[in-house]
């Protein structure tokens, strides 16, 4: 028993060392900077200063929620569609979902700028077929589009991997008991794929709330998301303390959101 647990510890040790150096230590640094001033003395001023960024916080959270909902609406049917295909087709389709991620995130976002702008590819096409051009770049919609586009694979992949392993006898049982298609989806498939949905929501919501590049390129830089403010404190203002305190509060906010959601979905699974 004890040798077994020793072995287990040995196997886990690379990960423990890794997380100590790259996860725990940075978190301690963030907390340290958040509660000190530039001379290293304890202060709460950084936290009080945050009230200035209330609007930015709320905007980021709201954009994150919208992007996550849109991703979920697109990804759920798509993942179901993929999981119903033969194995060979499934592999190709999953590859296609992942394909854009072979290119840098920055380049993909930059390309959206060229697509969406007033003289861009989409509007040139619209004008050619006689439709009035639509102003898309530098709007909130463009930023949310950028988030959905960039983070959609993070929603599709976990949902798909749960759905691919669904127990088909359950669905058959549902059909045998006289459930129509809709009932089967609602009472059987959705509850069973909930674990995938939960991790998908986490993987889309967290990066959406904290993103900074997308809003600068597609939003024209005229409104900030909280990630932009943090980036500016570190890159331009050299104000590590304020930057760390914003990050600290953002982390807590995200943790609260996740905790609430986990409760919500835990309840869901019980309610099958």
């Amino acid at each position: 028993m004890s040798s077994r647990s020793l072995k287990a510890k040995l196997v886990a040790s690379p990960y423990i060392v890794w997380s100590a150096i790259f996860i725990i230590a940075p978190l301690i640094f963030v907390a340290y900077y958040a509660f000190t001033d530039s001379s290293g003395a304890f202060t709460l001023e950084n936290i009080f200063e945050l009230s200035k960024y209330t609007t930015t916080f709320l905007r980021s959270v709201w954009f994150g929620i919208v992007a996550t909902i849109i991703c979920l609406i697109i990804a759920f049917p798509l993942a179901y569609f993929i999981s119903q295909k033969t194995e060979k087709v499934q592999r190709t389709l999953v590859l296609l979902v992942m394909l854009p991620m072979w290119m840098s995130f920055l380049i993909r976002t930059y390309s959206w700028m060229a697509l969406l702008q007033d003289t861009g590819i989409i509007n040139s096409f619209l004008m050619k077929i006689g439709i009035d051009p639509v102003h898309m770049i530098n709007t909130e919609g463009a930023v949310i589009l950028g988030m959905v586009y960039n983070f959609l694979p993070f929603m599709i992949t976990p949902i798909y991997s749960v759905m691919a392993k669904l127990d088909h006898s359950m669905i058959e049982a549902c059909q045998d008991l006289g459930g129509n298609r809709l009932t089967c989806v609602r009472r059987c498939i959705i509850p069973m794929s909930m674990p995938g949905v939960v991790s998908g929501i986490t993987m889309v919501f967290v990066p959406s709330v904290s993103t900074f590049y997308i809003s600068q390129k597609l939003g024209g830089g005229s409104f900030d998301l909280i990630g932009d403010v943090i980036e500016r404190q570190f890159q331009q203002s050299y104000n590590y303390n304020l930057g760390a305190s914003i990050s600290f509060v953002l982390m807590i906010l995200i943790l609260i959101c996740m905790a609430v959601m986990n409760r919500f979905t835990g309840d869901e699974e019980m309610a099958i």
Partner: protein
Amino acid sequence: MKKILAAFTALLIVAFSVFCANAASSDDIEALSGTTLYVYNWGEYISDGADGTLDVNKAFEEKYGIDVVYDTFDNNEAMYSKIKSGGVSYDIVIPSEYMIQRMIVEGMLEKLDYSNIPNFDKYIPEKYRNPSYDPKNEYSVPYTVGMVGLIYNSAIVDGTPDSWSALWDKQYKGQILMFNNPRDAFGIAQNLLGMDYNTESVMSWKLAAELLKEQKQVAPVYVNDEIFLKMESGEAALGAYYAGDFLTMKDNNPDLEFVYPKEGTNYFVDAICVLKGSKNKLAAELYINFLLEPDVALANAEYICYASPHSGVYTNPDYSFYGNEILYPEDGKFKTQSYLNLSPDTLELMSSLWDDVKNYNVDEGGSNYDFFFADGSLGGADASAALTPEGSRYLVYIIIFAVICFSYVAFRYIRKKIREKA
């Protein structure tokens, strides 16, 4: 006779050793072969061998056998943060003047040994020596110089703008590009207000911030190097940027024109410095000297398209920008100012005001430009005060969303209870 010879030999040895102490001997230089030099420069800021140009770093490696590790940054502040945080050690950096001054003040730079940089005396003319940011010219060797101007698309803009106020023109709403960094953005507002860039007056900075907030009425797009895409594609009407980069853009869109506004503009110098603690200082000085070789300086000037302070470049009739009026205007033809280092308090004020400007919403804040003239106080509708209307809108959305989620959970819970009872 023997004595005289001995004395002469001794003299020679002394002279030689003195010479050695002053300038690096070829032995010293040979000993550097196989060492590594770490260079930190702006992006796209050295001739890199593309399209048959000279690959400067490779040429240096071949000449001296010193490996060059070359990294780039895209703004002074990011460079400063990276070096200040201590995670990196570079030998050479090429920041702009105000940042050099700050780094001198904070003791981050090493004094140069000009006996190892003989090309400085040969090629850098008097007017580029002893600049205000480095009054005794101990720390820096100028690399490029230039000015900021107004770029406009003549296919969109009527007439010839001659003032920075064109960037506040409502006619071009949504088509105006502004610097996405506080120093340059404030610089433009300060030009319009006739202020000193380096003022330490809180009132002046707040006034400039109000002007930048007022600019939000024309929905400016804040850009860095996206300006190339946006100007060249004809997406934007007006923007402020560096003269050298305009020449690059003009190649791709001939409709673009350039003007130095009458209120005056920013004159900048990017200069080569050696960082304190450099482990390979002699190699760094060799590198600086190498960059000042006429053919290397010319290759860089052609590649970067910025004006060169190197007399071997701008007097060379074969140089493609020889006598170019945009890059090399007559001295004193345009009013210019340069950025200097600001005190920590002013820097903090500027960052904080810049955050306010970026988050200012013109539709909801009203015109507080009039307001602050009326009562003399500043920051009437200060974004920092409380929740802005925009913020409350998002808050309402989030609350509605939370309520929907909560009622759904509650509904399921109650239904479950009812079923359990049944």
